[in-house]
C-alpha cells in the first residue's frame, strides 16, 4: 500500500482539538482496561456460591450492563450524541422493552416461572 501519507488535511470536528483527541484516546485506553477487569469480575462472580442461582444471574447481568454502558457510552459516543440518534434509540428501547414484557407475560401465564 502506498497510502501512507501523514499530511492529508483532516478537518477536526467542531470543538475537537488535537489535545482533546489525545485526551479522549487516553480515556479509551482506561475504559478498555475497565472492561477487561469487568470481564474478570463477571467470571469471578459466576463462580461464587451465593446460595441461589438467581443472585448469580442478577450479578452477571449488572456487570454486563455496566460494561455495555461503557462500550455504548464512550466507544460509540452515546453520552454526547445528537438528538436524532437518541430518538432512534428511544424507539428501539421502547420496542425492546415491549418484547421483554411479552416474554415475561408469556412466562406468567405458563406453569413454570422459576429460573433453573
Amino acid at each position, binding site marked *: *500500500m502506498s*497510502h*501512507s*501519507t*501523514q*499530511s*492529508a*488535511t*483532516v478537518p*477536526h470536528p467542531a470543538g*475537537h482539538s488535537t489535545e482533546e*483527541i*489525545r485526551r*479522549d*484516546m487516553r480515556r*479509551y*485506553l482506561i475504559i*478498555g482496561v475497565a*472492561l*477487561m477487569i469487568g*470481564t*474478570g469480575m*463477571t*467470571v469471578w462472580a*459466576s463462580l461464587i456460591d451465593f446460595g441461589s*442461582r438467581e443472585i*448469580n*444471574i442478577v450479578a*452477571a*447481568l449488572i*456487570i*454486563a450492563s455496566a*460494561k*455495555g454502558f461503557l*462500550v*455504548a457510552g464512550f*466507544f*460509540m459516543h452515546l453520552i454526547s450524541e*445528537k*438528538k*436524532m*440518534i437518541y430518538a*432512534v*434509540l428511544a*424507539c*428501539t428501547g421502547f*420496542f*425492546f422493552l415491549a*418484547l*421483554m414484557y*411479552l*416474554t415475561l407475560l*408469556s*412466562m406468567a401465564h*405458563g406453569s*413454570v*416461572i*422459576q*429460573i*433453573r
Partner: protein
Amino acid sequence: MEIPYSVKPRPDTGLYNAKVGIWLFLASEVMLFGALFCSYILLRVNAPDGMWPHHWLNIWLGMTNTIVLIFSSVTVVLSWASLKMGQFKRYKLYQGVTILCALTFLCIKSYEYHDKFIHYEVILTDGRIADGHIEKGQTTADTVALLGWWPKDEAALMDPPMGHPVEKIEIPRKQIKTMENYGPWHNTYTAIYFVLTGLHALHVLAGAIVIFAIWGPLAKVWEQDPERYINRVEVSGLFWHFVDLVWIFLFPVLYLL
C-alpha cells in the same frame, strides 16, 4: 446530481447520511438479537427441572474471546481517533490489529464448535450413559472409542461435576441404543447456543470484511477525500462496537449462568 449530506453533516440534525443509516440498522439488530435473547429466556425457564445444562462450555476460551473483542473495540476507536489527527500510519496499525483480533475470535469460536461436534453422548441398550470426545483413530466398524466418563444419569450430564475422572471408553456398537454429538440438534440449549453464537460470528466476519476493505482496497479514499474516509471508519467502528456489545451479554448468559 450529488447526494446531499453524504459527507458533511446536515445542519439541522448534525448528522451525515451514513451515520443515520448505521444507527437505524443497529436498531434493527437490537430487535433481532433481542428476539433471540427472548427465545433463550423462554427455553431456559420452561426447561424441565434440572435439565438445563451448566458448565458445558469452556469458560476460559469464552473469557479469552471476550478480552479479544474488547481489545479490538479499543483498537477500532483508537484508529478512528488517529485518523482525526491525520495519523494514517497509526490508523493502519490499529485497524490491522483489529483484523487480527477478529480472526483470533473466529479461530477460537471454530475450535469450540469443532469440540462440540466431536463430543458425543452415547446411551447404551442397558440404560447406561457414556459421554466424551470420540477417538476417531480407535473407532472401528465394531466399537466406538471415547475419551470421557460415565454420568450416573441425565441430570449428572446436565451439570457435570468439576474435575470428574476421564477415562478411555470402548463401546461395542451392538450395545449402543443412541449416539449423538453436541451439535445444534442435541437439545434446546445447544440449539440456542449455536444460533446465538453463529449469528454473532457471522457479524464478526462481516465486520472484519468491511474493516479490511476500508483498511486495504479502499484506503485510496483517504488521499482523495479524508473526511469521507473518516466517516467510513466511524460507521464501520459503530458496527464493530455493537458486535462487542452483544458478546458482552452472550458470554455470561451462555458460558457462566
